[in-house]
């Protein structure tokens, strides 16, 4: 799931600037699930913008909240926002960066403002209420070799032949020994599975050519 965090209200207000009408668009995908950008948050944002209006002594501000099923779907965005969007100067997207861009692509003349910072692809531990980055979408998955723990996302150096010298008692020096060292986790996992040969294996430099350019999967293409 794509993990987001709401930007400070001041930044959002600054970005909206002098816009007199704002369509707040939530997303029921990742943003809704993580409760940063669903219908409820869109309504809360409406209230926040009302407060902002008073704080900034604005005369008029027309605001309407709504939510789309998925803002990362070009057709859903086009059909879901048209024709309503024509009555608004600006759109405040409560989705991830993909949602913001999709709206901006469909409605070229609108000012589209992100309400969130898109952080990472992560896992949620509901008991602790924590979110952890688990995938970097590197395009070259090694999880079988690494016992189900991603060194790209979970090692601070993203190295493929760890651990580095910065682990102590299984914790990583980056973040002052509060996070687990991914390579110690990998070692533990492979050990439990009787697969330490996979740990000891040298992984040569990876081909980064694909990730060095914008990702694209064409219709009908296999890769």
């Amino acid at each position: 799931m794509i993990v987001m965090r709401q930007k400070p209200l001041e930044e959002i207000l600054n970005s909206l600037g002098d816009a007199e009408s704002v369509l707040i668009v939530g997303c029921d995908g990742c943003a809704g699930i993580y409760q940063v950008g669903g219908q409820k948050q869109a309504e809360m944002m409406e209230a926040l913008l009302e407060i902002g209006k008073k704080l900034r002594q604005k005369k008029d501000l027309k605001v309407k909240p709504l939510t789309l099923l998925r803002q990362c779907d070009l057709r859903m965005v086009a059909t879901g926002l048209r024709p309503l969007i024509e009555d608004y100067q600006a759109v405040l997207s409560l989705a991830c960066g993909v949602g913001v861009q999709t709206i901006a692509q469909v409605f070229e003349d609108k000012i589209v403002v992100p309400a969130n910072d898109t952080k990472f692809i992560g896992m949620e531990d509901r008991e602790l209420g924590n979110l952890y980055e688990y995938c970097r979408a590197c395009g070259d998955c090694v999880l079988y070799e690494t016992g189900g723990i991603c060194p790209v996302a979970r090692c601070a150096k993203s190295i493929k032949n760890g651990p580095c010298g910065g682990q102590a008692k299984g914790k990583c020096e980056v973040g002052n020994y509060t996070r687990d060292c991914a390579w110690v986790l990998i070692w533990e996992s492979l050990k439990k599975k009787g697969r330490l040969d996979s740990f000891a294996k040298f992984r040569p430099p990876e081909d980064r050519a694909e990730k060095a350019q914008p990702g694209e999967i064409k219709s009908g293409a296999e890769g």
Partner: protein
Amino acid sequence: MAREAYSQLMKAINEKKFVFTGEIEPLKTTDPHEIIEVAKAHLGYAVACNVTDNPKSCAYMSSLVASYIIQKETGMEAVYQLCVRDRNRLALFSDVLGAAALGIRNILSLSGDHTTFSDNPGAKPVYDLDSAQLVYMVRKAVDEGKDLMGLPIERPPKLHIGMAGNPNADPLEPELLKIDRKVKIGADFMQTQVVFEMDRTKSFLKEMGRYDIPVIVGTFPCKSYGVADFFNKNIPGVSVPSDFMDKLKKASEIKDKVARASRYDEINIEFFTDFIRELKKTTHAAGCHIMAVGYERLVKPLVENVQRTSA
């Protein structure tokens, strides 16, 4: 089987001499005076000196340039430390060729302290290659005369590639498996992290016995009680023996600055002479890496004392 020696360091190791290496830290300056003086303080006592590459991720004078300067100005051989943190494979490869062209014969492959420790913490960490992959790249260049893509190098580099090892790692097993990987890829020598405890050093060296790699054990003379205390409290896994700590603590109470410094020197010379003599006598260590950063005055009397008392 030992490879052909291109450097004085590797030549001495191949001749089974117990080697000493030193440490030189270029700082945030364009003035080479200090590194030249530190290199001179090691002449005749260390066969080579490591030249650090932006330690703690701080942006300092290039270790490649500093390595060249100390070799040219003093004749001290450099172990050019090269971190994969700051350069992608193109830059690393260019620097390896450049180093060889400048007469540098030893490189130490390091991942490097993470950029979050930096004096410029907003920097992007690169890690296009990791330190094992850098060893692989250099091995390919030296042995096959090719780059990572297999493209030929005109006049391939002749130099040695070293690796780091951490006797203090806890758990130790993944560290040993990592070392196994790098040795198999073809690292020429190993320099270890700082270690103060002889028992730990011996058990690590025993583990290293199964590999065909010369191990140079890292030591860090403590210029003051504060330095030793810092190691004890802040460097995970490092434990400074209590009798050494006690002596340093007592010395720290000496009011007269000159007398205090002199007492610190005595304590360090005594402790590290015993440590190094024990290494020489009872282990297969190829040598000792003396990280006397800011304390280079100790190198001469320490090495002389080791040589005198082991003769």
